[in-house]
C-alpha cells in the first residue's frame, strides 16, 4: 500500500517536473498522440523506473558507506584489509545481466514490430528533406494525378494526414543546384545531405539518408496539429528545419484532398493578377524568375527545386520556409520576399531586389492561392 503511494508520488513529481516548464508540451516524447510514439514511450517508462531504482540503490549505498565509514575526528584506525570476494563478483556480474536480459525482450520485439510495413489501406507519402525545408508528395492512386497535369499533390512544411489511419512515409534526401549565376554560387546550392524526420508526439526519428529510402509507419489518434523538426545536423539552418503534422477528421480530409487536387485558381484580379504576372514572367533587368524554382499547379511553373505553392494559402498550410514563419503573417512573408537571408541566414532563395510594389503584388497573389 505504502509502496504504491510512493510510486504514485514519484510519478506525479516526475510528471510535474516535466510539465512545469513545458506548458505547451507540443514536442514532448512523453505525451504521445499515436500508437508508434505510444509504444516507444511504453518501453521507455518501465526502463526509466528500473533505472531510478538502480540509481536509488547504488547512490544510496554510496551515501551510506560514505557516512558510515568516514574517518572520525582524531581517530587513527586501520580498517580490516579485504581483497575481494569471488561470490560477490559473480553475483554483481549476473544480477545486472539478468535485469538487462529481461529489458531486452520487449526491446527486440518492438524493434521488429516497428520495422514492419503497414497493411493495405495505409496512406503513402514521400517525404523529401531539403536544405532547410520539407516537401511532401502524396503518391496514392487517387492523389498522384492532380492539378489537371498528372502531378502528385505536393506541399511544403505541413504534412496533412487523416486521423486514425496508418501513414507510411518514404523518406528521401533531395536537393540540387538552384539559383542564378554561372557557375552556381556554392553557398546557394541546395545540397543533398542527411536529415532526420521526427514528430515526438507521433513517432521517433528515422534518418533521411541520400541514396536510401527509409520508412516510418505512424498514425495520429485524434485530429490536431503536431510539431516536428529535423533532428540530424544538416548545416547552417538545421535549427529552422521544422514542420507540422496536421491530422484531419475523415470529412475534413476528403475536403482537403478535393481542394489540393485542383489546380491553382486562374481567375485572379487586381493586385493579385499583377503578382501572378510577376511570378510567371522573368523579372525586369535580368533579376531572375520565380518559376525557375517554384511550381504552381495549373500554370507553366513546374520546377520542383523549391516549395510547391499551388495551395500556399490553404487553411491547413499554416507555416512556411521550414516553419520559419506563419503563412498568415503578411509582414513576415513580405520580409522574406525582400531578403530571405536577412530572415533566415543561408536560405537558398536569393534576394531578387524586389520593389515594395512587386512584393505587395506577389503577396496578394500568394494569398489568393487557397
Amino acid at each position, binding site marked *: 500500500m505504502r509502496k504504491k503511494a510512493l510510486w504514485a508520488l514519484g510519478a506525479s513529481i516526475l510528471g510535474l517536473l516535466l510539465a512545469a516548464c513545458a506548458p*505547451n508540451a507540443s514536442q514532448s516524447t512523453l505525451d504521445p498522440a499515436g500508437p508508434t510514439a505510444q509504444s516507444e514511450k511504453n518501453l521507455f517508462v518501465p526502463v526509466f523506473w528500473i533505472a531510478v531504482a538502480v540509481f536509488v540503490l547504488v547512490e544510496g549505498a554510496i551515501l551510506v558507506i560514505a557516512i558510515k565509514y568516514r*574517518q572520525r575526528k582524531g581517530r587513527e584506525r586501520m580498517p580490516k584489509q579485504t581483497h575481494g570476494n569471488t561470490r560477490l563478483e559473480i553475483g554483481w556480474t549476473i544480477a545486472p545481466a539478468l535485469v538487462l536480459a529481461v529489458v531486452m525482450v520487449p*526491446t527486440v520485439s518492438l524493434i521488429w514490430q516497428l520495422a514492419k510495413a503497414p497493411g493495405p489501406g495505409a496512406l503513402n507519402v514521400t517525404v523529401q528533406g531539403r536544405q532547410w525545408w520539407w516537401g511532401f508528395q502524396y503518391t496514392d492512386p487517387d492523389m498522384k494525378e492532380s492539378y489537371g497535369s498528372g502531378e502528385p499533390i505536393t506541399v511544403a512544411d505541413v504534412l496533412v494526414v487523416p486521423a486514425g489511419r496508418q501513414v507510411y512515409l518514404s523518406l528521401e534526401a533531395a536537393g540540387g543546384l538552384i539559383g542564378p549565376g554561372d557557375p552556381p554560387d556554392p553557398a546557394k546550392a541546395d545540397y543533398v545531405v542527411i536529415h532526420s524526420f521526427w514528430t515526438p508526439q507521433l513517432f521517433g526519428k528515422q534518418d533521411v539518408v541520400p541514396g536510401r529510402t527509409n520508412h516510418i509507419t505512424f498514425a495520429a489518434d485524434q485530429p490536431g496539429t503536431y510539431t516536428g523538426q529535423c533532428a540530424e545536423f544538416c548545416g547552417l539552418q538545421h535549427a529552422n528545419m521544422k514542420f507540422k503534422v496536421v491530422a484531419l477528421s475523415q470529412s475534413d480530409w476528403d475536403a482537403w484532398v478535393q481542394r489540393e487536387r485542383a489546380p491553382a485558381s486562374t481567375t485572379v484580379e487586381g493586385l493579385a493578377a499583377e503578382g501572378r504576372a510577376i511570378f510567371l514572367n522573368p523579372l525586369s533587368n535580368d533579376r531572375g524568375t520565380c518559376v525557375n524554382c517554384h511550381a504552381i499547379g495549373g500554370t507553366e511553373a513546374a520546377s520542383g527545386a523549391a516549395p510547391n505553392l499551388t495551395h500556399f494559402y490553404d487553411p491547413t498550410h499554416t507555416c512556411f520556409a521550414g516553419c520559419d514563419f506563419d503563412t498568415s503573417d503578411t509582414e513576415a512573408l513580405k520580409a522574406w520576399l525582400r531578403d530571405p537571408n536577412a530572415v533566415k541566414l543561408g536560405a537558398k532563395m536569393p534576394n531578387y531586389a524586389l520593389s515594395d510594389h512587386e512584393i505587395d503584388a506577389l503577396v496578394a497573389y500568394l494569398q489568393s492561392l487557397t
Partner: protein
Amino acid sequence: MKGDMASLSVQGARGGILRRPSATTGWLSWFTTVDHKKIGIMYGVTAFVFFVLGGLEALLIRSQLAQPDGKILNADQYNQVFTMHGVTMIFLFVMPMSAGFFNYLLPLMIGARDVAFPRLNALSFWVFVLGGLFLYSAALLGGAPNGGWFGYAPNSVTDPTPGMTFYALGLIITGIASTVGAVNLAVTIINMRAPGMTLFRMPVFVWMGLVVQLLLIFSLPIITIDLFLLLFDRRWGTLFFEAAQGGDPVLWQHLFWLFGHPEVYVLILPAFGIISEIIPVFSRKPLFGYQFVVFSGIAIGFIGFGVWAHHMFAVGLGPVANTAFGVTTAIIAIPTGVKIFNWMATMHGGELRFDTPLLYSIGTVTMFVIGGLSGVTHAIVPSDYQQTDTYYIVAHIHYVLFGGAVFGLFAGMFYWWPKVFARQLSERLGKWQFWIMIVGFNLTFGPMHVLGLNGMIRREYTYPASLGLTGWNQVASVGAFVIALSILLFIINAVRTQSKPKGLENEDPWDARTLEWTTACPPPVWNFDEIPEVHALDDFWHKKYVEDEKTGLPVPVQAGGAPEHDEGHEASGGHAIHLPSPSFWPLVASFGLPIMAYGILYSWWLVGAGALVLLVGFYGWAMEPSVAEE
C-alpha cells in the same frame, strides 16, 4: 662500428644546423626535453589551456541558449562554436590530459627511468600542440570547422567554408600524435617494468593505461582513413560519400563510430584508472577485486569495438543490426557495473579520509552511474528513436565524460600534485571547488534530460518560445557559469600553490600504495636512484605495513625492520645513470606536418616544404645518438 657512429655524431654537432642542446633548466629546456615528466607536465598545461578555451565556447553556447530566439550568435557562428567545443574537449583536452597523466606516471608506477622512446614522446607532444593550433588557426582563415565534432558526410563535404578541411587535416595530425604516443606507452608498459613488476602486480591505472593505448592503436587508423576520405572528397572531388555517384554517406558514420565508440573508453578509462588508485588509498584498504577491476577494463576495451552502431539506430540499418547492437550495448553495461560495485566494496568497511582526491573520485562514481543508467535507456532501441539527437543525449554524454572523465582527472590532479610539484593544492579551495562544480554540473546537465524528452534537438542554435523549453534552458545556462566559477577557483588554487616555495613536510602525504611515491617529490630526472624490485601488488604499502594474518589488520613495519631492501642505498645523484639527452629534432620534425597540411589547403610548394622539414627533422634525429657525448 661504434667509432663510426661517434665520429658521425661529432661531425653532426660541429657541422650541423643545430647544436645539441644540453640545458635541463630554463625555458629552452622545455622545447628540447625528452624527459617523460617534463613532457607530462607540458601535456597537462597545454590540455588545460584547451580546456579553458573549450569551456569559454561552452559558455557562449549556454549564453546563446539562455533565452528563446537568442541573438548572441548567429547560425554560422553557433555551428563553429559547438563544433570547436566538441573537438576541443575530446581531442585537445581529455585525450592529451590523460596522455599527460600516463606520461608522467606510467614510468614511475612501473619503476622505469623513462618511456621506451623518449624522443618519440617529445615528437607526439609537439605534433599534438601544433595540430591543435592548426585546428584553431581555421578561425582566422575563413572559418572554424562547423560540421560538428562527428563531421557527418555529406554535410561536412558540401559545406562551402574551409572549416571542415581544417578539421580533417587537424585531426589527422593529432591522430598521428596519439598513435605515436600510444605505441610508445604500450611498449613502455610491456617492456620497461622493474624486476618483479609482473602484469598482475601493476597498478590498475597502469592496466587502464595499457588498455587505452591498445584501443588507440587499433581505433585511430579507422578514423584516419575516414578523415582522408573526407579530405579527398573535399579537396579533390572524389565521391566516397556522394550517394548520387555510387558513394555512401553512411560509410562515414560506420568508420567514424567504429573509432568513436572505443574513443569513449579512451576518454573514460584513464579516469577509472585514476580513481582505482585513489579510492584504496583514502579508504586505507586494498582495491576490492583487483583482478575483476582489471578484467572488466579489458572487457570494456574489447566490447567497445562491438557497439558502434548504437550511435546509428535511426540511420535505417534494419532490425537485425539494431537488435544486435542493442544487445551488445546492454552487455557493455555489465563490466562497467562490476567496476562500480568494486569501488563501493573498496570503500565499504574502510576508514574514509575525505580529502579532495576522494571527493572527486566519489563524484566520478556517482555522476558516472547516472550517465551509465541513461546509457541503458539508449540500448532499448525504439526508445532511442525518440532520444537520439536530442538534449537527452547531450545530458548523457556529459554525465559520462564530464561527470566521469573530468571529475576523475581533477581527482588525479589533486592526488598527484604534491608528487609532481612538491607543493600541495589548498584542500579548502579544492573542496569549495568540488561542491561548486558538482552543483553547477548537475544544474547544467540534469535539466538537459528533461529538455531532450520534451523534444529539444541538439545542435540547434535557437529554439522558439512556443515549445516551452525556456525554463530548463535558463537553469542549464546558470549552471554553466557555476561550473566556470569552480574552474576559476581551481586556477586560483593552482597559481597560489605554485607561487609558494617548493617542499613537502611529508613526501608521502596520502600514505599511498604505489611505486611513484617511493621516490622524491618531484622525482629526479632519473626517477629512481636504484631501480626498485617489486614483491607484491601495492608494493610500497607492503613496505610500510604488514597485514596481520589473524585479524586482517595492517601493522606498521618497525623502522629498520622492513623487508630486505629499504632506504639502505646511498643516493647516487644519478651520475652513473645515462638518460637520453635533450634534442631539437622532434620539435623540428613536428613542424613538418602542419606545414604540409597548410600546403594541402593552399599550395603544393608548401607541401614540399613541409615534407622537407619532416625529412630533415628525421634525418637529424636518426644521425644523433640518443645520449650525447660527454
